[in-house]
């Protein structure tokens, strides 16, 4: 297949997955807010960190309030917003219509129009939740449709690769923020405050929910929700489809469909070793953030190698 087309398909999948994740994060934050007592100040700023948009947010807003974040991540004209990511996903879909199933294009197109029309109303919490749910559903439908109709050729391999890398990337960001604590008490000085006990469980529960992982965690871990097990589950559980290691393994498995895959294969193996070798309990005491940074650097190296190997027109 053409390099240019491969690149667009890969990005289309990444954008769609990122849209879904952004919608999940926003909706989980809204529900987390309802679970917490008024005196805890919810750290909306964490969403800025998870989405890696600190600078872009700072140029638009002074404070990280719910309304500002909702606007920023849903409708603003910036790379991080659901609207503009969908517009890019649609543009990539529009320019790869010759290889993608027609029905999938129509879904992406409809989702784009729906979001454009619903975005302005989404500052109201109830309307926002309805909209986010529909976005999540639609993304799932689109990927389901691709899975159900595309031959397992190079095109579909790039769909899966884009989605897997995006998922692995997002889950590590979420773990990072969970560990940094989503909350801050006003006026306690420079030392990071200990999170109030009864709510720590709620925090980690919501981290799980943001990845639709709560139910599977309960079934497979079978322990009370706690930071250590949640981090281990989201990073190292081979069977959970949003866990970092599961997605890296997915990439390893599908690479055989592509030519010249040696370099990417090596980098994926390296990232897998790094994810699996860590002792989560120790990291939670100290160094989790640095550790996550290292993983992120490895993901970026995989992405660069993918681009170099298959997308650059020079060949």
């Amino acid at each position, binding site marked *: *297949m*053409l*390099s*240019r*087309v*491969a690149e667009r398909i890969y990005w289309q999948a990444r954008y769609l997955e990122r849209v879904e994740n952004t919608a999940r994060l926003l909706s989980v934050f809204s529900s987390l807010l309802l679970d917490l007592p008024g005196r805890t100040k919810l750290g909306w700023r964490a969403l800025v960190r998870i989405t890696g948009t600190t600078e872009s947010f700072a140029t638009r807003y002074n404070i990280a309030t719910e309304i500002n974040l909702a606007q920023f991540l849903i409708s603003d004209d910036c790379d991080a917003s659901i609207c503009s990511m969908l517009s890019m996903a649609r543009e990539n879909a*529009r*320019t790869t*219509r*010759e*290889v993608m199933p*027609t029905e999938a*294009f*129509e879904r992406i*197109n*409809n989702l784009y*129009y729906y979001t454009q029309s619903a975005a302005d109303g989404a500052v109201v919490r109830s309307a926002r939740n309805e909209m986010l749910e529909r976005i999540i559903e639609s993304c799932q439908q689109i990927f389901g449709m691709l899975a159900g109709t595309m031959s397992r050729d*190079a095109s579909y391999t790039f769909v899966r690769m884009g989605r897997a890398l995006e998922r692995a990337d997002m889950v590590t960001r979420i773990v990072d923020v969970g560990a940094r604590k989503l909350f801050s008490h006003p006026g306690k000085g420079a030392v990071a405050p200990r999170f109030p006990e009864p709510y720590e469980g709620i925090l980690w529960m919501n981290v799980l929910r943001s990845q639709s992982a709560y139910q599977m965690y309960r079934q497979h871990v079978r322990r009370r929700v706690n930071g250590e097990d949640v981090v281990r589950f989201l990073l190292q559980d081979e069977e959970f489809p949003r866990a970092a290691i599961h997605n890296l393994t997915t990439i390893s498995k599908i690479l055989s469909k*592509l*030519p*010249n895959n040696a370099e990417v294969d090596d980098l994926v193996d390296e990232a897998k070793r790094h994810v699996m070798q860590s002792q989560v309990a120790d990291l939670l005491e100290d160094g989790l953030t640095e550790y996550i940074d290292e993983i992120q650097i490895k993901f970026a190296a995989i992405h660069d190698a993918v681009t170099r*190997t*298959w*997308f650059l*027109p*020079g*060949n």
Partner: protein
Amino acid sequence: MQIDWQSYNPGDFHDEMIERPGAPRPTAQRLAAYLESLDRKDLDEKKLAAQLAIKTMGISFTVYSDGENIDREWPFDLIPRVIPAPEWEVTRRGLDQRVRALNCFIHDVYNDQKVFKDKIIDPELILDSVNFRPQCLGIKPRYNVWAHICGTDLIRDEQGRFMVLEDNLRVPSGVSYMLENRRVIKRVFPELFENYDIQPVTEYPQELFDMLASLSPRRQAFPEVVVLTPGIYNSAYFEHSYLAQRMGAELVEGSDLVVENDRVYMRNIGGLSQVDVIYRRIDDMFLDPAVFNSESMLGVPGLFQAWVKGNVSLANAPGAGVADDKVVYTYVPDFIKYYLDEDPILPNVPSYRCFNDKERQHVLANLDKLVVKPANESGGYGMLMGPQASASEREEFARRIKDNPRNYLGQPLISLSTVPILGNRAAEPRHVDLRPFILQAADSYVTPGGLTRVALVEGSYIVNSSQGGGSKDTWVVMG
């Protein structure tokens, strides 16, 4: 009851739906009766459903306006246009005949030039044409066919006879809209199909692919066929992508291709792979900066030489546009006689050639009655509609004709036939033309019907989508 054929009045024009107010034509009777049975609410719902379907399906075209590209949804009218099958069969044979003669002519121009020696046409008219490519002299494409895909515009006159308005032999577009119009109608108005046997149009992409594959220089089971597009900002990008998808062919841009050792390759994820046939949707002048316009960023350096060497086939062949010229058009009936020894089945619109002194005098003296067209423009640009033009516009055209008589052609204003569209009030008559598509290689294929373009503005003759025209599904129906 919203639509009432009693009060639908096309005046003096030939209307394809009714013979006279209240009396639908025999093949349209069931359609007319069904439409009459719908109330306002039904019709509004159908209209809305069609708009939604077009938006969802992403059927769009791009308009250039004030330097910006705007992707617009395709303007579409719900009432199908009905053409009786026996009448279409004659038209189909006429189109096939016409394109065969045109291909003989193009091949002759670039090879033996018998048509000049036998004084059928003055060589100057051809050799000085902006569409003549001296680089193509002596080349013999497979089957001696140059124009593989042709879109011929037909109109019906006051008596309802089909006539040829022009032949588009360069990069004719519109076929994807013909196919999508049928899909939209099936989606929102399936009831219409119950009482009719309608010739299907869906095989076109398959026919197109088979024709293209038959041009492959390498004899192999799966020739690599690609569609070459100028890119997403081109007004017909939707169609390029649509046809590639329906054929299962790659859609490539110039930068995806590279020529090495006079062979064309595409840049794939695994390296380079050879291309056999290119359905190019880029004008000649932009195909290859090494041979034509050296500024072109759209084309592929070395492509022309690869074609000359016979290592890749181009459809349509470079230079085919020499017959896509409104002056050459006037000679097509002569070509049919000369090359095929047959009588033309489809008539031309009577035309006055401005390079001929007598005919030019006639045009200049009758500018208020005639339509004046430039020889090489498409899309309805640069025309003078005499009866509607102002005195100063007519003076301007008189000056242009005297400056460059070769480039102009006068034709009487033909009263185009009308068909009903679903207007805001009820059914309203509007003028239409028809663009069937003709494929030609070893065999030929003609689409049943074609793309009907309709002037949505009352009384207007301008059907081009870039200038406010719309379209309709077109049915060739049995009895």
